[in-house]
């Protein structure tokens, strides 16, 4: 109702939209739909699918179990260094995945600060195991979860907690009966985000956990490995991840 949009804005906007949409459309068109189901049943694809399902599932469980209390702490308790902690939690969000992998190697690698301690005391090593995949995924995914839940807690506001206190509720009861139910949509959104991030993780995983079929080769790693040799398998898996991405976006709205 304010008048027609000027061409000087329309033209670059259309160009930008084309750039973003075209690759997705061609991917959908070029996917080998005829052999889609048989591709799914091939050994490497099945193994990568199973591993991705397992690791992303575990990642979400760890995020919810540990991330919810952390989000609550950041949103509801005042303490020295809270701003710093919140910033530190957000670092993995913008940290390049490869750097995250290097940091994990430095900490938990065979010769890492914590890793060597672990090896000496228990004989266990983390890198290049399925556990390493989960650790890498938790490291890069948990910030999404924590910040989403913290945002939900802040949006819900402290007033509901305050009312509970004036009505005689303890802090733990308030958390269970008031805080958590009100932040539930944020919890779910955060879990979905963390799951999607985990499912697509590539850089930190390949750096910290490697790319071994059956133990650390997740879907993105398999796609990367087979794009030249077996583009059909790569596109089939890409299609699955694209559908998941679109589903996640649709679910978050």
């Amino acid at each position, binding site marked *: 109702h304010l008048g027609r949009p000027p061409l000087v804005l329309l033209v670059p906007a259309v160009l930008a939209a084309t750039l973003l949409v075209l690759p997705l459309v061609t991917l959908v068109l070029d996917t080998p739909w005829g052999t889609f189901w048989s591709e799914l049943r091939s050994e490497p694809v099945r193994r990568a699918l199973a591993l991705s399902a397992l690791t992303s599932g575990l990642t979400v469980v760890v995020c919810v179990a540990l991330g919810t209390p952390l989000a609550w702490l950041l949103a509801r308790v005042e303490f020295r260094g809270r701003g710093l902690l919140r910033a530190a939690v957000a670092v993995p969000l913008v940290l390049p995945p490869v750097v995250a992998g290097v940091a994990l190697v430095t900490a938990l690698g065979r010769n890492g600060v914590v890793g060597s301690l672990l090896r000496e005391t228990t004989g266990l090593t983390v890198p290049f195991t399925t556990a390493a995949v989960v650790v890498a995924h938790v490291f890069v995914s948990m910030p999404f979860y924590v910040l989403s839940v913290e945002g939900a807690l802040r949006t819900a506001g402290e*007033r*509901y907690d305050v*009312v*509970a*206190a*004036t*009505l005689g*509720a303890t802090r733990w009861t308030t958390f269970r009966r008031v805080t958590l139910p009100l932040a539930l949509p944020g919890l779910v959104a955060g879990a979905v985000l963390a799951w999607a991030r985990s499912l697509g993780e590539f850089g930190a995983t390949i750096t910290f956990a490697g790319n071994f079929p059956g133990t650390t080769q997740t879907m993105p790693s398999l796609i990367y490995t087979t794009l030249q040799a077996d583009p059909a398998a790569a596109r089939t898996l890409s299609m699955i991840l694209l559908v998941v991405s679109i589903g996640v976006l649709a679910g978050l709205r």
Partner: protein
Amino acid sequence: MASVSFQKAQRWYPGADTPAVPGIDLDIKDGEFMVLVGPSGCGKSTTLRMLAGLEEVNEGNIYIGDRDITHLPPKDRDIAMVFQNYALYPHMSVAENMGFSLKMAKVPTDERNKRVEEAAAMLGLTEFLDRKPKALSGGQRQRVAMGRAIVRQPQVFCMDEPLSNLDAKMRVQTRTDIAKLQSDLGITTVYVTHDQVEAMTMGDRVAVMKLGELQQVATPLELYDKPANLFVAGFIGSPQMNLMEAVAKDGRASIGGYEVPVDPAAEKKMHGEITVGVRPEAWRVVGPGEGLPVKVTVVEELGADNYLYGTSDVEGVPSTVIVRVHGRDHARKGEVMHVTTDPHHVHVFDTKTGARLSD
């Protein structure tokens, strides 16, 4: 039910230059409806939140009855608070909201239902008990918030601008409902508002605050008839009292050529620069040559009342003089009218200190 006593209770926010409330002394009687009123930032909400345990008390003490509750957590104070935004739990039904405090106190389900139903009946909410708050109107939500507080049967109600989110009509209706309810229940109530009309109509007594300090604690009519200082005089009453600068000499107060009639108490005490206050309804229209000349600039006809807004060229008189007149027959825009008043309607204040000089 119990009395409430603030004894030099202070709140100083960390990092602030001055305390929000430097130290308040206030005694509230058992069953009394006390209204804290003042402009925003006057410390009225902070004072209430200190009583509820939502703000730390840095110095001094607060008692409910004989209990020193200064440092108790909110849940142990036996109060119930009603907030401006109600903060009803959206994931609970009206009944669950109202019964929340009883659930916390582990009251058996039967007893809980009984008390919730009683309160709902009292507030006309019976038919809404199964609804979620979002399915209610603003006025109904307000009543649920009241109900949630009532069900707790606390020693003290704390209410923080509970009518601000209602529209004008609803506010007028609800304020009488709350006043009636409180007087029936007889629970000591501390009520915070920025609206002087609410304060006047609801409070047994009203505490007027400014910059964290109490200005006057009195019944509504005392505040209106004998404001203790210039701030209270200007704050209480709408339209505002006409406050005019005058000069006092030998027991006479004059604004330009107009000699203001003042009462004997003021006559003795006033000298030098004073401020004279006259409420809009206290003016009398007199003939030309007498009184204060006022040129009418705006006429407001509200149906029942009419307000004339005028300007006076006399030095010291504010740009606008407000006169309330009755009937449909009065000066029109552009006319000059003359007004005066009587000694017992004139409030005299010391301009510098703001203190009341008249009786």
